[in-house]
């Protein structure tokens, strides 16, 4: 079966610092891939490149076979137009560390915005879909609240609903519990676990090792912009082979 997402030899530098150094990764339908690694290992940059929020220097990303972010023009690599980038982005969902809800819109309107403006659905239909997804993340009773009036965990669940309402082929999650108070982490992890059980394809950057082990079908360990080890979460996290992964895991355990 063709993978949904194919990343080949992805390379990106900030100045002289190489943040991504030849990353190869495939994600198949129904995969839940957890990306782990120390701060600065390139996990978040990788996710942002996939969502086309960052440009990259070389390599390619394909979603369902379609080349993402760039086109080849007589052998020259050209960034796509804003309109094309927007169209490609609408097929992926991203959930951010700091939620990034639109503060001037209610929870419902946050979820509806992409439906009415990007998918151009009639307001009534968009509203129905948005209500459905807010219900799925357990926030049917908060739909008319502004982001400032609900907890961080609830905001993050609205952000998840906002991404999923667009019916993305792939959901990208960037350390979605890192900014939350400890007592709010579980409600968000539980929401993600339910999505995994429902077969949502996800690429998850996380520092929650236990969660990665429980929820993902595959774990990828990155260090210095490259993938060092990947495979079954129980094996990667339980029987690390490389010295760098061993060091990383023991530093997380402390």
């Amino acid at each position, binding site marked *: 079966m063709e993978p949904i997402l194919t990343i080949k030899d992805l390379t990106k530098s900030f100045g002289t610092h190489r943040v991504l150094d030849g990353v190869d990764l495939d994600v198949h339908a129904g995969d839940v891939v957890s990306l782990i690694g120390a701060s600065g290992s390139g996990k978040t940059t990788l996710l942002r490149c996939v969502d086309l929020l960052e440009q990259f220097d070389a390599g390619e990303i394909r979603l369902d076979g379609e080349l993402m972010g760039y086109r080849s023009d007589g052998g020259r690599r050209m960034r796509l137009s804003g309109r094309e980038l927007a169209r490609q982005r609408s097929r992926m*969902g991203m959930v951010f560390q700091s939620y990034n809800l*639109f503060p*001037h819109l209610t929870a419902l309107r946050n979820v509806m*915005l992409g439906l009415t403006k990007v998918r151009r659905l009639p307001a009534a239909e968009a509203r129905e879909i948005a209500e459905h997804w807010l219900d799925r993340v357990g926030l049917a009773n908060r739909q008319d609240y502004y982001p400032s009036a609900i907890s961080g965990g609830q905001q993050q669940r609205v952000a998840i609903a906002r991404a999923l309402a667009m019916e993305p082929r792939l959901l990208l999650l960037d350390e979605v519990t890192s900014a939350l108070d400890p007592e709010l982490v579980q409600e968000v992890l539980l929401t993600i676990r339910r999505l995994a059980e429902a077969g949502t394809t996800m690429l998850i950057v996380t520092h929650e090792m236990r969660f990665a082990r429980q929820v993902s079908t595959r774990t990828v360990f990155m260090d210095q912009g490259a993938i060092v080890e990947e495979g079954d979460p129980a094996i990667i996290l339980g029987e690390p082979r490389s010295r760098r992964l061993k060091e990383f895991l023991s530093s997380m355990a402390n």
Partner: protein
Amino acid sequence: MQSFLDVLALSSAALLHGVAITVAVSAIAVAAGLVLGAAFGLVLTYGGTVMAFPVRVIVDVVRGTPVLVLILACFYMPAGIGLSPGPLTAGALALSVFCASHVGETLRGALLAIPLAQTDAAGSIGLTFAQTLGYVLVPQAIRQIAPNLVNTAVEIVKASSLLSAIGVGELLLTTQEIIGRSFKTMEFYALAGGLYLAINLLIATGGSWLERRYRLR
């Protein structure tokens, strides 16, 4: 000698006309200033160096020049290229550009203060840049600068009194004419001050009503 009330009765029509001119020229300046100022703000923020440069020059010159000088310039300078705008046209133009420069600079500040994460979030659901501006960035910026816009409108009403210098028959010039005939200096300046205050209180009240109405705060 006539009493104040006698003079007031005789000149009330002229005074009302003066108030009407003040309100009308201010309204035109604020409306044109908002539209032009929005364009200024967007070009200053997203126009890139080349497009932003001429706007930056206009905004800095206008903001660095006394309003009276601006008004006199708009009235007298077009003669150099063969145009002769009437005082009302020249005055409305001067106040519009003055208003636009303030709105443009304020909007730029508000747009720059919105976290980049908002642009990322809008992009990630597939909004184009124009949609991101229209549905995410500008609405947030307007909420941010709404109180400021009300202040600018009040400033415009006050600045409109300077149009008396080029012979626009607004409230101040009308008042001075009445005083010239009746010598009721204290009474009519006090009345004019009261009328300016009343207009501005109405603007402030209307502004905060709008802010509440549209949940801008």
